[in-house]
C-alpha cells in the first residue's frame, strides 16, 4: 500500500516535470472546450429552450465542457502508454521492483495532473465571459479533487482499451469513439430528463454524468443533494477500472 502510494507520487512528479518543460499540448487542447463555452453556449443560451434550473446556459455547460476536456486528456493518456510500449519505457518499468498494479494506478492518477491543468486553463476564460462560479474555496478545491480522481478512472479505461488496441492509429479512432458517446449521453450539455428513455437508461451507467453532476453542484449551482451518490459512483468506477486495467496490463507488454 505504502509502496503503491509512493509510486503514484513518483508518476505524478513525472507528469509535473513534463508539464513544466512543455505545456503546448494543454494550450492547444483548450481551444475546443473554449469554443464550446463561448460559441455553442451563447448561441444555445439565447434560444432558452433547455431547462437549466435557474442558471444561465453557459454556466450550465461550463462544468460539462470542462469535464469533457479533462476526460479527453485522460483517455488519450492511454495512448501514451501505447507509445511507451513501442518504446522500451514500459519494459524497463516492469523490470523495476515496482509492482505492476502500482504502475497502472500510478500512471492513471498521473493523468489527473494533466486533467487539472487543462481545467485550470479553461477557468479564467469562463470567468472572463461571465460564468458565475460559487465563490466558495472549499467547494472549488473539492471539485478539482473529484476531477483528479475521476481522471484516474478514465485513464485506466484507456489503458484497458489500449491493451486491446496495439497500434497508435487504431487507438486514435477508439479514443474518439469512447469520448463522444460518453459526452453526448451525459448531462454535460443538457439535463438527463430531456433525453429519450433509452439514452436516459445509458446515462445512468455513464460515469461522466456523475462527475459532471458533482462538479456542477460544487462550482455552479451549489446543489449538493446527489453528491453522495456521485462520489460513490466515481469510487466504484475507479476501483473497477483500476482492477480491470491492472489485469489487462500484461497484454500490453506481451
Amino acid at each position, binding site marked *: 500500500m505504502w509502496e503503491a502510494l509512493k509510486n503514484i507520487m513518483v508518476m505524478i512528479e513525472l507528469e509535473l516535470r*513534463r508539464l513544466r*518543460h512543455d505545456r503546448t499540448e494543454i494550450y492547444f487542447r483548450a481551444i475546443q472546450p473554449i469554443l464550446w463555452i463561448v460559441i455553442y453556449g451563447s448561441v444555445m443560451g439565447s434560444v432558452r429552450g433547455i431547462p437549466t434550473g435557474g442558471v444561465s446556459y453557459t454556466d450550465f455547460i461550463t462544468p460539462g465542457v470542462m469535464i469533457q476536456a479533462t476526460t479527453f486528456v485522460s483517455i488519450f493518456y492511454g495512448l501514451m502508454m501505447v507509445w511507451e510500449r513501442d518504446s522500451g519505457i514500459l*519494459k524497463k518499468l516492469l523490470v523495476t521492483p515496482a509492482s505492476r498494479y502500482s504502475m497502472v494506478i500510478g500512471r492513471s492518477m498521473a493523468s489527473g495532473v494533466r486533467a487539472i491543468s487543462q481545467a485550470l486553463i479553461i477557468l479564467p476564460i469562463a470567468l472572463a465571459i461571465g460564468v458565475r462560479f460559487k465563490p466558495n474555496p472549499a467547494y472549488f478545491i473539492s471539485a478539482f479533487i473529484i476531477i483528479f480522481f475521476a481522471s484516474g478512472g478514465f485513464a485506466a479505461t484507456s489503458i484497458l482499451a489500449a491493451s486491446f488496441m496495439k497500434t497508435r492509429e487504431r487507438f486514435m479512432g477508439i479514443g474518439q469513439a469512447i469520448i463522444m458517446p460518453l459526452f453526448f449521453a451525459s448531462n454535460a450539455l443538457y439535463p438527463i430528463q430531456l433525453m429519450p428513455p433509452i439514452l436516459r437508461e445509458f446515462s445512468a451507467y455513464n460515469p461522466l454524468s456523475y462527475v459532471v453532476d458533482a462538479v456542477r453542484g460544487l462550482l455552479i449551482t451549489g446543489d449538493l443533494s446527489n453528491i453522495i451518490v456521485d462520489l460513490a459512483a466515481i469510487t466504484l468506477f475507479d476501483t473497477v477500472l483500476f482492477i480491470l486495467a491492472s489485469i489487462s496490463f500484461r497484454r500490453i507488454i506481451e
Partner: protein
Amino acid sequence: MRALDRVDLIVKPGEAFALLGPNGAGKTTLMRILTTQLKPTAGEAYVFGLDVVRDSGRVRRLISYVPQEMSVWTDISGYENLLIYAKIFGLPRHERGEIIDEVLENMGLSQVRDHLVGTYSGGMIRRLEIACAMLIKPKIMFLDEPTIGLDPAARKAVWERLRVFKEEYGVTIFFNTHYMDEADLYADDIAVMNRGRIVVEGTSGELKNSLGGEIIAFKLEESILKPGLIREIRKLESVRDVFVEDGRLSVSVKGAESTLPHLMNILRNEGVYVEEVSMNKPTLDDVFLKYAGTRLEEEGRISEVAHTRYMIRKG
C-alpha cells in the same frame, strides 16, 4: 512454435557474457524471461539462485535491464530521468543525489545533465539508459543490443564505460549483440544461438579454435557447387570442414600453405573458376557462419532498428 528450445546456459558471476544470434534466434525472448517479463512455458531459470518465476520480485531487486528500444523520457532532462528512476527503485533520499551525480559522471553526461533528452545524440541516450540501469548497482545487468544504431566512436564510448562498471563493481553483464567484434573484444564468454537453441558456447578463443586451424576462402564465379566437389574436398586429410554460402567456399584446414595447391587442383579438375583466394585465421564471423549457418545480414538490420529508434524519438 517454440521460441526457445532446450536452452541450457550458465553465466559466471562478474563476467561479461555475449549472446550472439541471427534475427529471430530467440535472444530477446531469453532475455525477457531472465528479466521476469515473460514466464517460460516450461523449464526453469535462476538469477543468482532465485527462480525468475517464483521469486520474480526479489530477482527484480538484483537486476537492471536496458531494452533494445529507447527507454527514457525525451521531454524531461537527463537528470530528471535518473531522479524518477531512482525514486521508482526506492533509493534512500540522502544517497539519491550523490548516486545520480556519480552515474552521470561515469557515463560522461555531467555536462548535459539539465538538457532535455530530446536534444541528446543516440550515443548519449544509450549512455543515459545505462546510467539508469547503474543506479541500483545491480548484480547483473541485461543489455539487449546495447550499441545498435550507434556510430563506431559512440559504441566504443559505451563499452569503455561498461567495462569500468564491470571492473569497479563486479557487475555481471549479459548482452545480446550481433556485432561480432563487440563480442570478441568485450565478452569473457560467448554463446551462439540459432532457432531457439544454444548451438555453441565458450570463450572467443575456444570458439575460434573449435574451427581448427586456418580458413581458406574462395570467391567463385558460379554460386551452385556440385555435392561431389565438396565430398572430394572433405576427403583431403588436412581439411576439417567445408561451408558454402552464395559464391563463397570456405574451407577450414590445418596447414593452409600445403593444402591450398590440393584444393586448387580439385577445383580446376571440376572446372570451377576461382576469382579470389584468401587465407585467414578464423574469426568470430566464421564461428557464427559455421554454427548458425548464416552470416548476419548486418546492414539491413541495423538501419531498420536505427530507423525504429528514430521514429520512436519523433513520437
